[in-house]
């Protein structure tokens, strides 16, 4: 980091003592009060749970959660493993492991099986962990064009605008609007790649980071050059240890090959769902509790350390090399989107499909039979249950796509049990800064547990959560409301 940041200083000192916290605070130049607030906020500074942990994701909830839970000493939040769920972890003094194919695989070695990825374009035909392999796939065209003077900021911004690329992190905000705003800001400026994928049901960014790191880096560097960012930070979910190591290797390779046109580094995330909210993410990078900021000002005006900052999702940036190579029109004709499909389908995995593909067709691609399903959870925890199989999977439609998660549930699944998992997740992940979210998500857990269907209570829960400071609280009731709609339609 250009400025000392508290979180890495604390990480270097794990396990923490009071003296070490004080030392980290001194080195970061922050009051002890701030450091203590941070230590008392992020789970890893309070000591992680130990033992055998069940990953509590919507698929595990659908597979007989209480029976699965009996086999574990605790639970862990969703980890992008829905296509493999149910999954158990082992947290011991020796490190963090995933139980996989009869072995304990350390986090730093575990990647999603490559065979889960189905598509070409964003997804590579074979893993591309080295620059040579990326080049063999025809990569680095964008950065080469930049080096050769064939690309400049104006051209990149124009292409992104003409393509109409929308943010792939869930909010679907026009990418060129953010890019232009940062491009017009005063230096120094930053690009932060939001690689903190933690929306339950989604594993697309995880897969890209693990198997296609150069594509992500090339997209990030092109965006950084286009907006005049002096530094790129990859804010990566800290549990994705293999991805982090792969990215750090890839950054070194790019540098050695003379293509790292903007200094780039990895920042290990704070390890909470809220860290994916762009302003909470920036707060954590600045060494504070990851709590969302009041907007405006938006990060494009005042972001990291108060400077204009472009925060973009991994998949959004991964589209840049493709979009520049094919041209905006060709790219737009088959606009690629990654869909994380899991649950009751024969071939759960990551599917690259053109935007607009009907939900039923997407499910059939994954070996699912819509008629045999009760519903899907679309988007994630901040998503909706639906059985509208004709729904085109596109932005701006009747239902929010989120980041593209589709979790399928067969007819015998108790959807209330799934919903209980989501309600529990929101309660656990609420940061507690504003009033509606921590109160409402706690009240919601009780309502879901007792299978509350009183429409006036649900209406007031929704009206109040909608007033939350950030998207976490604002969307926390969507799944609940949509389940009652699906029930009513059944």
């Amino acid at each position, binding site marked *: 980091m250009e400025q000392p940041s508290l979180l890495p200083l604390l990480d270097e000192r794990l396990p923490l003592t009071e003296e070490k916290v004080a030392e980290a605070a001194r080195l970061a130049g922050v009051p002890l009060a701030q450091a203590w607030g941070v230590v008392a906020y992020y789970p890893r500074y309070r000591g992680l749970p130990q033992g055998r942990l069940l990953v509590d994701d919507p698929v595990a909830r659908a597979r007989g959660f209480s029976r699965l839970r009996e086999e574990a000493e605790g639970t862990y939040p969703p980890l992008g493993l829905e296509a493999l769920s149910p999954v158990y972890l082992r947290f011991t003094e020796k490190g963090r492991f995933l139980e996989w194919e009869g072995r304990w695989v350390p986090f730093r070695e575990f990647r999603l099986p490559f065979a889960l990825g189905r598509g070409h374009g964003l997804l590579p035909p074979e893993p591309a962990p080295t620059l040579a392999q990326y080049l063999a796939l025809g990569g680095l065209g964008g950065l080469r064009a930049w080096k050769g003077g064939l690309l400049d900021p104006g051209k990149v911004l124009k292409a992104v605008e003409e393509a109409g690329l929308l943010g792939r992190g869930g909010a679907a905000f026009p990418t060129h609007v953010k890019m232009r705003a940062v491009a017009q800001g005063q230096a120094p400026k930053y690009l932060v790649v939001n690689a903190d994928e933690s929306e339950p049901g989604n594993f697309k960014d995880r897969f890209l980071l693990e198997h296609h790191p150069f594509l992500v880096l090339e997209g990030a560097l092109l965006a950084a050059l286009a907006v005049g960012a002096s530094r790129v930070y990859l804010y990566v979910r800290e549990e994705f240890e293999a991805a982090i190591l792969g990215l750090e290797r890839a950054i070194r390779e790019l540098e050695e090959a003379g293509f790292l046109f903007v200094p780039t580094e990895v920042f290990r995330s704070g390890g909470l769902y809220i860290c994916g909210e762009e302003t909470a993410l920036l707060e954590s990078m600045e060494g504070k509790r990851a709590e969302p900021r009041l907007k405006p000002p938006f990060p494009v005006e005042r972001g990291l350390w108060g400077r204009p900052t472009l925060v973009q999702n991994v998949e959004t940036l991964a589209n840049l090399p493709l979009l520049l190579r094919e041209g905006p029109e060709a790219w737009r004709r088959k606009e690629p989107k990654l869909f994380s499909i899991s649950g009751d389908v024969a071939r759960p995995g990551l599917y690259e499909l053109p935007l607009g593909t009907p939900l039923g067709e997407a499910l059939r691609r994954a070996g699912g039979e819509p008629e045999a399903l009760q519903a899907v959870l679309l988007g994630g925890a901040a998503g909706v249950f639906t059985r509208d199989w004709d729904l085109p999977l596109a932005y701006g439609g009747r239902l929010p796509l989120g980041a593209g998660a589709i979790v399928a549930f067969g007819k015998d699944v108790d959807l209330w049990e799934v919903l209980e998992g989501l309600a529990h997740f929101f309660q656990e992940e609420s940061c*507690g*800064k504003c*009033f509606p979210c921590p109160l409402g998500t706690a*009240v919601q857990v009780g309502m879901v547990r007792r299978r509350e269907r009183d429409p006036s209570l649900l209406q007031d829960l929704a*009206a109040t959560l909608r007033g939350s400071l950030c998207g976490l609280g604002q969307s926390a009731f969507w799944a609940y409301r949509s389940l009652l709609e699906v029930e009513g339609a059944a």
Partner: protein
Amino acid sequence: MRLKVNGKEVEAKEGALLLEVAPVPTLCHHPHTETRGVCRLCLVEVNGRLAPACATEVREGMEVRTDTEGLKALRRTLLEWLALTTDLSLAPGLLGLMAAYGAEPGRWKEAPSRRGRPPIRDNPFFLRDYAKCVNCRRCVDACGDGIMGVYALTLAGRGLQAHPTTPLDRPLPETPCVFCGNCVQVCPTGALRPLALEVG
């Protein structure tokens, strides 16, 4: 500049907050501590979008509504949830708002509570009674960037468990606290109160 509040035209100075021209309840906002945007009781609809009146500046031609059914439901529900979870016995302002909005906390049946938190009496000047704390942050802001710059208070925990504490959770006399009393002055719910007012 001119804007419309609940359909009526009003005049406001540039840079004024909506709070100054729109009738809304407040809780966390405090001009000295610079706390704002946390409690959401002052939310209004600006051209159909929710915005906190305490943190939104007036703009020419704005259409502001303070009393839609959705906003009334939000305030009533928030007050109910606060009453369910927190001891509001020393917060007459909130009790008055509850009556005004017809709050009935019982309709929610159950919620986790903060009422079980034991009071902390670790200094001769004031009591920290976090069973009454709604976590508005005024005290933390008063102690830190808002007024004093002393940083004897911070926040611990997340979600409904989040609450003010001291660095390393130490008793106040072992912190940079100078016992200025600003935190006590700005506390809206009696969670921080002078021991001089305690009987017995």
